[in-house]
């Protein structure tokens, strides 16, 4: 697991949208993507990508927890003794996740049911702990906020791409929260109705999530040669 620390922001007077801070936002989308490069937060990224709506809700939840956690830990960074920092981080993150879980159960009960334990597992999502350790503990709230947004978005786009691929090929549909599943192929095309098309059920099964992410990594690294690893 690479935990490269972004150099600490030390200058006092620096506008929130300086060049360095813009890099905090754009880097995690490609060069230091949390999933494909830093290898953080894989568990949830794979398990909930069967449908787009779950992926959207999950991305929003992680984004919320990341922003909250990064800003709170960054505000507390000078008060927390080094030895107990992990447990302090866990408590902060767990409280934020409880809020997310209660909100989901109240407003999106179906999706909350489908996500089941994976909402709780945001607590141990390494992407959150990883960014808290690597960034928020050493930086001021402003940059931490941007770093959280950047990494949250980097996580989200992989999730959305994987879930769109899996849902389109696996169920022949696209679903968004609040809209339900929209099937875009006419039913007469399917073999059961005398057509020629059949959904690829393999895409719904868990292993295909891994292979889809593997292929995304392949494409990304062949376009961005700097990321290629030694064997």
């Amino acid at each position, binding site marked *: 697991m690479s935990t490269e620390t972004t150099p600490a922001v030390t200058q006092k007077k620096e506008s929130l949208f300086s060049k360095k801070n813009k890099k905090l936002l754009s880097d995690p989308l490609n060069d230091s993507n949390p999933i494909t490069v830093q290898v953080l937060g894989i568990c949830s990224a794979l398990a909930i990508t069967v449908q787009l709506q779950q992926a959207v809700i999950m991305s929003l939840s992680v984004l919320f927890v990341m922003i909250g956690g990064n800003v709170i830990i960054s505000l507390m960074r000078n008060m927390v003794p080094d030895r107990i920092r992990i447990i302090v981080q866990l408590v902060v993150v767990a409280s934020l996740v409880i809020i997310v879980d209660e909100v989901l159960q109240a407003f999106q009960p179906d999706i909350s049911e489908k996500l089941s334990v994976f909402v709780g597992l945001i607590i141990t999502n390494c992407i959150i702990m990883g960014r808290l350790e690597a960034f928020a503990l050493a930086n001021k709230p402003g940059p931490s906020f941007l770093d959280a947004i950047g990494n949250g978005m980097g996580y989200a786009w992989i999730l959305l791409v994987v879930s769109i691929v899996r849902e389109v090929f696996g169920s022949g549909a696209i679903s968004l929260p609040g809209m339900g599943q929209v099937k875009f192929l006419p039913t007469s095309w399917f073999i059961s109705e005398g057509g020629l098309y059949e959904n690829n059920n393999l895409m719904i099964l868990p292993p295909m999530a891994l292979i889809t992410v593997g292929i995304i990594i392949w494409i990304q690294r*062949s376009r961005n040669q700097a990321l290629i690893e030694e064997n």
Partner: protein
Amino acid sequence: MEYFNIFVKGIFIENMIFAYFLGMCSYLAVSKTVKTANGLGLAVIFVLGITVPINYLLENYVLKEGALAWLSPDYANVDLGFLSFIMFIAVIASMVQLVEMIVEKFAPALYGALGIFLPLIAVNCSILGGALFMQDRQYPSIGEATVFGLGSGVGWWIAIVAIAAIREKIRYSHVPAPLRGLGITFIITGLMGIAFMSFMGIEI
């Protein structure tokens, strides 16, 4: 028989890695050599075997709706379920600390083997996942919960040792450059997952 069933199910059919992707971060990061993978795998079995029963007791005597009735009948309607995330993670983090200290004191050889991996485990999703699945599936007794924890741990251990062995070998083959390292590991894990799916539907 019921125990054996839960154990085998935890290892093969509901494998933490291949069916639920739990603990993937450490699975990918620590699987470069078989030796370290083995150490981390054993530590996961150990910690899951301890934390799942403790969280089971916590769930059934403190958190569940009506669980506090043993204190006094007045508390029969109290439902502390919303606290379960924070309680579970607190139990796991403190148990890992405690286990680390105990092992260091009484079994230095084991500490040498597991030592550096124990702190990593507090944030391994498979441990919290084990506790949450235990809560979800409502096992009838603590024995079954323990066996579930051990079975899941063994399944995780098998998965990480297998991928580490494959990664040691694949170093000598010609993998396309952009796939090297992470990419090929993902794809191999996917293929192993498909293989493990053949265990699905087995009833013992």
